[in-house]
């Protein structure tokens, strides 16, 4: 089992290394020299050259890469060009709305998606299945920003039930702040429930066709017990996996929803960094977000190893 965990850990580091490498070299493909970007249009050639030297940009690319990798490995993601502070700090300041948004929307998605998926697998081909599968497909076809705009128009502008946008005034209490998340989390929850519904349905169908479910029927157990204990027991782990990974992807994937609702989260930070060509922030955000995904993935693997008797021994 320890060997397994060690192997996972190595794979996790490899993934992070590849992400970092990809991010570094792709950024260098970008048009425009980082130094001149930093100094703006008025800078003289001499100023630019000076800055290039300070940042080591005059060194060969591979040397820069190694130096940068070292920095990243030691947890230093660099300075933001525009925000005048370390990238990590900038991300930290924006973490709260993103974290809560991801949390609430995945909860909503799971609460809708898991029961819907189970129901549509159990009543496969019947009306319940057609309705649940159809709604899931519809939800997966709706652009989140469009649904967000419509919800905003209806529930916030017309009905005035929720704040239109933002994350409350500075100094607003936690409840006030969370109140601003109701609409965006609902939108994101609906859109993501589609994936969870389909995945739950598919894994449930797989398990329901297993021989041991037939054995459970031959034992004379009531149908609800067969579904809850024998079938669900065997689909729980994959469902938890997909919920966990979706949550991880929402940390960076909520960009559009954050933009629609003007939430000062990580996604918003990334979009403004892209528009301002603030490359250190983009690089840093990508690495942090990939890191969160990889860590959650690893955690799920470890839990899986602990829970499933077939992996344990």
């Amino acid at each position, binding site marked *: 089992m320890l060997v397994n965990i060690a192997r996972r850990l190595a794979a996790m580091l490899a993934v992070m290394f590849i992400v970092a490498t990809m991010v570094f070299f792709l950024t260098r493909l970008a048009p425009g020299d980082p130094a001149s970007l930093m100094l703006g249009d008025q800078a003289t050639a001499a100023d630019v050259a000076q800055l290039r030297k300070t940042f080591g940009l005059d060194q060969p690319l591979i040397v820069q890469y190694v130096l940068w990798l070292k920095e990243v490995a030691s947890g230093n993601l660099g300075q933001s060009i525009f925000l005048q502070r370390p990238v990590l700090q900038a991300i930290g300041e924006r973490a709260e709305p993103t974290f809560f948004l991801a949390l609430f929307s995945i909860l909503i998605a799971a609460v809708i998606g898991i029961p819907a998926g189970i129901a549509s697998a159990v009543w496969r081909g019947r009306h319940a299945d057609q309705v649940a599968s159809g709604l899931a497909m519809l939800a997966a076809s709706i652009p989140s920003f469009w649904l967000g705009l419509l919800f905003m128009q209806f529930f916030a502008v017309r009905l005035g039930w929720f704040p239109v946008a933002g994350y409350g005034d500075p100094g607003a209490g936690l409840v006030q702040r969370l109140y601003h998340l109701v609409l965006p989390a609902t939108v994101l929850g609906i859109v993501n429930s589609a994936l969870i519904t389909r995945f739950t349905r598919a894994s449930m169908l797989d398990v329901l066709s*297993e*021989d*041991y479910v*037939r*054995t*459970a*029927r*031959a*034992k*004379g*157990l*009531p149908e609800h*017990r067969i579904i809850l*204990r*024998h079938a669900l*027991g*065997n689909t729980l782990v994959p469902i938890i996996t997909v919920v966990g990974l979706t949550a991880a992807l929402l940390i960076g994937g909520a960009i559009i929803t954050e933009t629609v609702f003007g939430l000062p989260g990580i996604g918003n930070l990334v979009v403004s960094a892209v528009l301002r060509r603030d490359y250190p922030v983009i690089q840093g955000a990508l690495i942090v977000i990939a890191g969160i995904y990889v860590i959650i993935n690893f955690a799920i693997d470890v839990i899986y190893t602990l829970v*499933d*008797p*077939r992996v344990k*021994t």
Partner: protein
Amino acid sequence: MTLPAPLLDIENLEVTFRTEENSVTPVRGVSLRVDAGRTTALVGESGSGKSVTSLAVMGLLPRPAGSISAGAIRFRMKSGETSNLASLAPDVMQRLRGSEIAMIFQEPMTSLNPVLTVGEQIAEQVRYHTGMNASAAMRRAEEMLGLVEIPDAVRRATEYPHQMSGGMRQRVMIALAMSCNPRLLIADEPTTALDVTIQAQILALIDRLRKEHEMGVLFITHNLGVVAEVADDVTVMYAGEVVESADVRTLFRNPRHPYTQALINCLPARALPGADGRRVVRSIPGAVASAAGVSGCKFAPRCAHTLAACHVSHPALETIDGGQTIRCCRWRDL
């Protein structure tokens, strides 16, 4: 001669599967009986309908597509009363499964739930049918594992299926089946997936339990060697119908139906000496699929004794001397 009422008496069973476009009848005209304390082997090749028949008895036909469209399945319960399983309400049928009728399957590797210990899986059934408390049910589970000759049963009860071999898992399945003292055990190809030396152990085990518990066994198999080993009575199916039934000695010594004769003759062990010293097996031409859409005798397209009448009229299942039944219009002259 008055025979005691059979434990299981299937009469003219017909099973239909309906899908949106069409309906098929994989089983029709199936009649067979299983007596208490005896083993009836149900023999047939793939597509003969033997497994569908067993699922119909268990009330486990895939829903909503499959249903019993005609016939009766009379079963004598522990209480002594007989009920027709074909017309029982689903919740009543559910309570009979596992307690009155138990079933074991072909694939021991996949028939047990991988995330529950084998003890839990047996205890679950015991608790559900007897209302025993958890610890008593677990003790019963351990006792059952001992009954099926699993060494170190108390420890084994805490193991998961993947920690056991195929033969061991089939023993667990048998322990599970026996845990509520069923009157009837349906064994659907229980040794097909096992090695011969393990198969011999499992066959001996089932036979011992049948004797000790006065239990009826419906043993479904395609293997005539196994039939000769375990059966008291044999029912042969072809293309969804029963074509012949007899006690095991009569069937092997004096098979009356051309299909039964051919099936026994095409065994490698019954090969005949051919030219140049080699032995040749006698084969049946064609495949089972050739029975599709046949209006007369289903076996006529492959039969060596076909008359014109065989293609036209569908023979009925007739009872001849000694309780042997046969579905062939030429049985008198063959």
